[in-house]
């Protein structure tokens, strides 16, 4: 695993315009960065990333099954009691999932260590599945990269195929996509999924989360008053559970992407549960609930993460009795978990995080994020990669 400089494609911003990639620069800072790339060997990709990704996903599904059978654990995961049946039913019915992303600390040597599972609302999908794919294609075409360069990135192909399966599993329904207003990034991610669904022949619509309505019977509606029967929402389950329309969930006939049982996986309580069920697993970091910190005494540094959070918010480092905040944010009221400190590898001045994607249960590619800070947040730069 190397970080190598490369010249930018001369007209890449026009290319971004052509393909509607509008959030390559955010808040005046570059987000997409093609002044360098990461290079992996095939062995690193297959043995250190691809195989562990599928294995950990299977382990995570074990956790879901355990948690849903145990009310004490459901409380630990801070799932509101009124939604337990909604989540359990979706699991028992085998409601199909679309995608997720596991975040790893990986340096090119030794086992990749799982930071967390973005199983409910993962973003940076378009940049990964399409835009870095196009970057490789363009650079091979202009001979800036060797012809035999490859990339661990079958994400778009797998998404389209998965949508074909989902249509077969969800007959006679049209698919509504939704995300919040005022976020170009989320709208871009959802547009990309709409393109993949259209490619698979699924009739689809878009509605903003804030605009979803309901009728007298409690069915959800779009702005044309069409009843929503199948919905992809780029919006966290833990938010929806606590909102006004949350009380209608489960009472109306909607198929959800991601399915409700993903609420167990997008939850940081997953991490101590994984460590309990698979202690010592090479790809796991020792992790603990707040009330079992006595077991963590052997670790000089712990990372404290909110049970619910997005984009690396509200993280601190605990050394003995000393708490040092690394990032602030609006999360943490539902409690925290603790993970043994394991720093991101440093390439030059950059801390590097590897996001490993799954479509259903198949590993589908990686995304690389870089930050000058130890915490990867939503302003961390996105860099492409190759396999050579």
């Amino acid at each position: 695993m190397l970080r190598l400089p490369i010249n930018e494609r001369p007209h890449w911003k026009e290319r971004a315009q052509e393909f509607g990639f509008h959030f390559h620069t955010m808040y005046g800072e570059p987000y997409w960065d093609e002044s360098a790339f990461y290079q992996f060997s095939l062995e690193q990709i297959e043995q250190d990333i691809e195989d562990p990704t599928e294995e950990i996903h299977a382990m995570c599904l074990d956790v879901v099954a355990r948690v849903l059978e145990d009310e004490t654990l459901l409380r630990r995961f801070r799932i509101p009691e009124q939604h337990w049946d909604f989540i359990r039913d979706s699991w028992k019915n085998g409601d199909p999932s679309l995608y997720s992303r596991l975040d790893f600390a990986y340096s090119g040597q030794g086992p990749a260590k799982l930071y967390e599972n973005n199983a409910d609302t993962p973003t940076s999908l378009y940049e990964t599945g399409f835009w870095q794919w196009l970057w490789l294609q363009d650079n091979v075409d202009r001979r800036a990269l060797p012809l035999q360069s490859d990339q661990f990135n079958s994400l778009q192909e797998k998404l389209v195929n998965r949508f074909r399966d989902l249509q077969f599993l969800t007959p006679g329904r049209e698919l509504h996509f939704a995300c919040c207003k005022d976020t170009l990034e989320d709208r871009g991610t959802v547009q990309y999924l709409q393109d993949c669904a259209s490619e698979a022949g699924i009739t689809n619509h878009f509605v903003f989360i804030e605009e979803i309505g309901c009728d007298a019977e409690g069915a959800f509606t779009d702005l044309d008053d069409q009843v929503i029967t199948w919905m992809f929402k780029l919006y966290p389950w833990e938010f929806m559970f606590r909102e006004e329309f949350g009380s209608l969930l489960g009472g109306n006939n909607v198929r959800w992407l991601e399915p409700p049982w993903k609420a167990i996986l997008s939850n940081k309580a997953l991490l101590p549960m994984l460590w309990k069920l698979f202690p010592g697993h090479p790809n796991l970091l020792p992790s603990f609930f707040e009330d079992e910190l006595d077991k963590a005494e052997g670790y000089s540094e712990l990372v404290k993460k909110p049970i619910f959070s997005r984009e690396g918010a509200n993280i601190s480092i605990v050394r003995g009795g000393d708490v040092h905040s690394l990032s602030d944010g609006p999360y943490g009221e539902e409690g925290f978990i603790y993970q043994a400190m394991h720093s991101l590898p440093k390439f030059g001045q950059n801390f590097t995080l590897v996001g490993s994607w799954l479509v259903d249960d198949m590993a589908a590619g990686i995304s690389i994020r870089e930050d000058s800070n130890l915490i990867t947040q939503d302003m961390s730069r996105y860099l492409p990669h190759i396999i050579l």
Partner: protein
Amino acid sequence: MKRSKNINLARMRKGRGASFVLRPLAMGITVALMGCSSDEEVKVVSSVEDCVNNTQLDKAQCEAAYQKALAEAERTGPKYARLSQCESEFGSCRESSGGFWMPLMTGFMVASLLNDNDRRYHSYGYYNPVYRYSASGSRYYDRLMTADGQVIGRYGKSSYTVNKSAMDPKPKVTKTVSRGGFGAVASAKSNWGGGRSSSGRSGSWGG
């Protein structure tokens, strides 16, 4: 190869005007594209008697079909808040059980030729209601269309050639009584502006 073999670049292009969709009316009329293999010849029948006389279904099947089409019309038909809105597009309207105005079903579609499989299917089959559009001055005046605005043809013909998709069930339309029941948590958290731009605008709610 560890990457996608092929990506449909034409679909991914988002140049100006590329994704422009023309929706001329409230209903969003779409003219059926006449392909070759995906077409089907259908009869539009307006009553049980009409159905018995002009299709291969028998009396019991026609009775069942008529009832199913009526129920489907209630579920998926165009809905208006005011009688005048409905009448301006469809002429004859009625008040629905849900308290809005809906056009009267002009008839329902039955395939002209039924093989043995179709016959079995049709004993429990799906019958799409059609409506007669009558907004004066509209280019769709006197056309028959399905609930989603797909045009079947001019009213009064003995049979119609339609795209098979015209036979598919249509999505349910209802009366929205409340909006804005989702999004409050994101809104509350986005007021927190630290670590981002000074505008306080929210970033992604994904991760």
